[in-house]
């Protein structure tokens, strides 16, 4: 296991290094340069040259990259061109919103998708199976930015059940120690605020969960079906184990590794989908921050956000890898 850990850690560092190179190169492809962006088109050549020298833009690319890398390791990506705040601080402030949305969507997708997949497999070929698998096909084809709008139209505008957007009602006051609205509301000791936070999160999380839910249901059904007819399952039944135990301890347990893999893979989908969901539901998360920064050409924030999200993504995938290396000894031996 230690060898496996060391080799995965080395790969992780290499990938993180690659991520920093990609982001650095992308920002160097920018039309114009940062000095022109900061000073505007009317700046004189002398003032542009002075600023380029101050920012180190007149240095060789390798020197610039080393400065960027050292800054990135210290969480220093410069200041936002829009409000002069440290870019990384803006990213960290927006991250809890995206984290809460992503975790809520993943929890919904797993909590509903795995039981639905198991049920569809157990009822293979019946109307129950069809009633579960047909909507999953629609689910994986759904443009979530459209689904979100339609959900808002139905549940907020027509039925009035849920709020139109945002994280909390206007005027709600509470301390924000974590930035996670449900946790902060619970921390404030006001049950009404917790309920409001849940109501605000429900529609965005359900929208974001659509595609992962469909994928998890499909993979769970598939894995259950391929495990159901194996010899060890027949043996378990032959020795008289109750059916519930055969399903839980023998079929589902062995089907879980590919399911965990798919759940890990959903993270990229969720982080990507969060960008669109945050836009529709006016949530001040990382995705929304980055899109606004791109549109405003606020490159320090784009850089900080890109490196941060990619690093989180890589680290979580590393964690998922470790999880199934622990679950399945064959993986760490290969």
């Amino acid at each position, binding site marked *: 296991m230690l060898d496996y850990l060391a080799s995965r850690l080395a*790969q992780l560092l*290499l*990938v*993180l290094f*690659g*991520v920093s*190179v*990609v*982001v650095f190169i*992308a*920002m160097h*492809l*920018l*039309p114009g340069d940062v000095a022109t962006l900061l000073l505007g088109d009317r700046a004189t050549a002398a003032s542009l040259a002075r600023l380029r020298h101050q920012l180190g833009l007149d240095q060789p690319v390798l020197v610039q990259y080393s400065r960027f890398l050292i800054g990135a390791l210290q969480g220093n990506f410069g200041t936002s061109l829009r409000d002069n705040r440290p870019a990384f601080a803006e990213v960290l402030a927006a991250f809890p919103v995206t984290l809460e949305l992503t975790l809520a969507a993943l929890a919904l997708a797993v909590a509903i998708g795995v039981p639905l997949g198991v049920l569809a497999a157990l009822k293979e070929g019946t109307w129950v199976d069809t009633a579960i698998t047909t909507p999953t*096909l*629609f689910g*994986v*084809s*759904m*443009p979530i*930015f*459209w*689904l979100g*709008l*339609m959900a*808002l*139209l139905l549940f907020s*505008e027509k039925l009035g059940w849920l709020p139109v957007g945002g994280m909390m009602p206007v005027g709600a006051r509470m301390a924000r120690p974590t930035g996670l609205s449900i946790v902060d509301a619970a921390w404030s000791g006001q049950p009404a605020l917790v309920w409001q936070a849940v109501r605000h999160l429900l529609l965005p999380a359900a929208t974001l969960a659509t595609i992962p839910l469909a994928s998890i249901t499909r993979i769970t059904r598939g894995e259950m079906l391929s495990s159901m007819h194996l010899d060890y399952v027949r043996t378990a039944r032959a020795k008289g184990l109750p059916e519930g135990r055969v399903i839980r301890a023998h079929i589902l347990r062995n089907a879980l590794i590919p399911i965990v893999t798919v759940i890990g893979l959903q*993270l*990229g*989908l969720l*982080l*990507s*989908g969060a*960008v*669109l969901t945050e*836009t*529709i539901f006016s949530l001040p998360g990382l995705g929304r921050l*980055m*899109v606004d*920064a*791109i*549109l405003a050409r606020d*490159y320090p924030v*784009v850089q900080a956000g*890109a490196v941060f*999200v*990619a690093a989180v*993504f*890589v680290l979580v995938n590393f964690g998922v890898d470790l999880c199934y290396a622990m679950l399945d000894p064959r993986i760490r031996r290969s």
Partner: protein
Amino acid sequence: MSETAVLARPPAAFSAALGQPAARIGLGIVLLFLFLCAFAPLIAPYNPYEQNLMSALAPPTLAHPLGTDQYGRDVASRVFYGARYALLAIIVGDGMALAVGTAMGLAGGYLGGAADAVIMRVVDVLLAFPYLLLALIIVAALGPSLLHSMIAIGVVYTPQYARLVRGQVLGVRQSDFVRAARALGASTRRIVLRHVAPNSLSPVIVMATLQAGAVVVETAGLSFLGLGAQPPSPDWGALLADGQNYFLTAWWIATFPGLAIFLVVLGFNLLGDALRHEFDPRAR
């Protein structure tokens, strides 16, 4: 994936796939989509750019079957013309990913050694980004535009093709017919292009079909965020973004472009699933 999954011959697999009702529905939707792309000027009742402020935000009627937008433009005509943007996204985005990714996979898988190591590390790094984030970084670097959003989506999907083709090639290059060609003195180029590539490409066809739908939804997503097609293009994502501002009062502006995206993606997914089912017997 080190073993070869190429077991069914393409023409036979296509016929078998089309035996499934879901695949026929998928093919029907895709053909309808292509028909719209080809004949949009003949089918569209109005010029998609023509404004008529007198009939702005009109709900669906006989004169405007899908209603009008805030400038009085006919939503049906804009949705029909929008199909062309979706097709363009497939040709540029999916086509670029397929061409570059296949070339990378063929080179890495067949040459092995340092070339393979370098290519696979590039692939690993590109896969280390959540796909839309990578697209955002590329659009940020090149500037928001329809072409740049398509290129960005192309780059995002390239590593997936590279990985798939490399896996196939690793299996095929050990086959007897490749060894025979090598023993007969065939050049590397001839072996790769005449023997390895044709026998590695079946899963690529499946991936290209499934990714076509994904490319449509993702370029539309970038346009929706304001980073792809710009107004007044009738791109479906841009139409949705337009409709978002009016969706509480004029639901039809956003509803129909979204429905069009959903149907096209569904069509490609149904077709791709059926092809995967036939091409790769392990998926059955």
